[in-house]
């Protein structure tokens, strides 16, 4: 926890410095008709850097050596995160609906070890219902791919 706490604090300090730097660039003083655009973010950045320095100092002195994540728990977390990332990567190419079908099917098969029949039924139903609700019912367009083009949507 100590290492993670320190890392987060330093990432936030770096972010704060970036905010301060950008605010100084656009001006933090008084413009022609009120405070300039950088005024508000500048002070946010300053306070954040200050607060994070104190958090980092506290974390540095702490004796909490428990790991950020239990060794056995890394796998289940990655098992969610990696397929989800693959799903997001695939969406612009395949369209959201095909990506959802493949994602649900793959996840059910490899992680859940469901039978192929239930895999196919569930994954196709999920996408079909999503498609109906969003494209037909609420008229909210989702990213589409070659399959939807082929079907004429």
């Amino acid at each position, binding site marked *: *926890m100590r290492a*993670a*706490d320190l890392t*987060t604090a330093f990432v*936030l300090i770096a*972010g704060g410095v*970036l*905010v301060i730097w*950008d*605010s100084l660039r*656009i001006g933090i003083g*008084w*413009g022609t*008709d*009120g*405070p*300039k*655009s*950088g005024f*508000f*973010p500048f002070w*946010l950045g300053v*306070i*954040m850097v200050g*607060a*994070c320095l104190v*958090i980092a100092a506290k974390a540095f002195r702490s004796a909490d050596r428990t790991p*950020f*994540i*239990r060794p056995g*728990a890394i796998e*289940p*977390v990655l*098992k*969610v*995160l990696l*397929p*989800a*990332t693959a*799903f*997001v990567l695939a969406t612009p190419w395949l369209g*959201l609906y095909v990506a*959802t079908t493949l*994602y*649900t099917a793959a*996840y*059910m098969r490899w*992680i*859940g*070890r*469901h039978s192929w029949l239930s895999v196919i039924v*569930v994954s196709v139903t*999920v996408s079909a219902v*999503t498609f109906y609700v*969003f494209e037909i019912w*609420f*008229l*909210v367009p*989702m*990213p589409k791919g070659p399959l939807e083009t082929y079907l004429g949507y």
Partner: protein
Amino acid sequence: MGFENLLLGFQIALQPHNLLLAVIGIALGTIIGVLPGLGGANGVAILLPLTFSMPPTSAIILLTSLYWGALFGGAITSILFNIPGEPWSVATTFDGFPMARNGQGGQALTAAFTSSFVGALFAVVLITLFAPLLAEVALKFGPPEFFAIQLLTFSSFVGLGGGSALKSLVSILIGFILAAVGLDIVTGTLRMTFGFTDLMKGFDFIVAVIGLFGIGEILLTMEEGLSFRGASAKIKPRVVWETWRTLPRYWRTFLRSCFIGFWMGFKPGGATPASFMSYSFAKRFSKHPESFGQGDIEGVVAPETAAHAAGGASLLPMITLGIPGSPTAAVMLGGLIIWGLQPGPMLFKEKPEFVWGLIASMYTGNVIGVIMVLAFVPLFAAILRVPFAILTPLIVSVCAVGAYSVNGRMIDIWYMLIFGVIGYVFKKLDYPLAPLVLALVLGDLAENALRQSLIMSQGSLLILLERPISGAITIVALFFFALPAITPWWRRLRGLPAPAVSPRET
């Protein structure tokens, strides 16, 4: 004077179309409340883009019903599965789950739903009475007063939120900074875009909510390991009736919990501490405190009543002042802005049909809600028996759909994923997420209020202290900000022991 307004509201809320929306909202909300990883704030955020084309009154009725449904759903998982769906249902598990294990699940659920109903109704009645008065006062507010109220809102997270005060402060600042990214509409300057065109439109709070609460929550649940071994979920009408006959015995607990809930919930981040406080009060005043934790029905009544009174109360500052009292209220407030309404006291003057339709729908929504959950508990509980290998991709793809539909931009789905990881890390390191979301929603409003105040005073921050109302509020806010620094010193002075770590709102 409030009465005919309320009547007007009921005419709107009781239209068949709006009643149907309330039913849909409660059904969806209960499902969302039962599912791990999809809480009230999240559900409202995902559904929000679908309401853009609806009339605002119908839209807000749908979303508030969803909110009530999510509150009810949290009770189901706490009692039957010992999984608190929401942080404010944690206290409900103390006695609810033992009751369900002893075969009294029906009694526990009936007590929980009835208490929720009583708590929410109490809050709605107080909203009906006080909202117009508060709005009347707030109409006289200028920019300094509004900025002072914003300060008070955020100071109460720092001073009263529990956990690390510095980390609460940092969360607030991150929210404000993210809100400032992109085009500054007042001056037309680009801020913190660093040359990336994608950053010009800034970060949408809906995407942030979906990522932080949705994806982040799934990662956390997976790490803790899911095990849904639930008790039976049958409710017989006879059990409901018999439980109702015993409940009036606890009128003192009901009343006390209502007041605790409303008082805590009116301030931001109040529902969770309210439910814990109410539970411990009930235990302290009980004639048989040793039965608490073993399955005492009073231990279900107290936290549920308080949590729902608080949940209702958090809507009061949202409709009167434009300051949300909870992350869910914050998302709804963002919705108001998107529907083209100006949140704040002017709503009562300009859109009475909206405000009173909303208030009346809180009555109808709760009545429909309590009937629906009592009737369909087994159905809702069955959702948790769906294997997690189906639930996980389902929740992730619903979140992705919600994030994309906000602006129709692919990058928002990436932001959602990144916010998910941030939410996971922050939750583990005790950085609270609720103030971050509130700051992200209120960022522009707060900055404009500060700007206008400074223009009024020619650049002097003292204007916040010089005007009587804003001065008083600012002093209270500064006191709350200083509270975490004062408390240890005060305790040492009096020779008191260090306090136990207080529970944290999400």
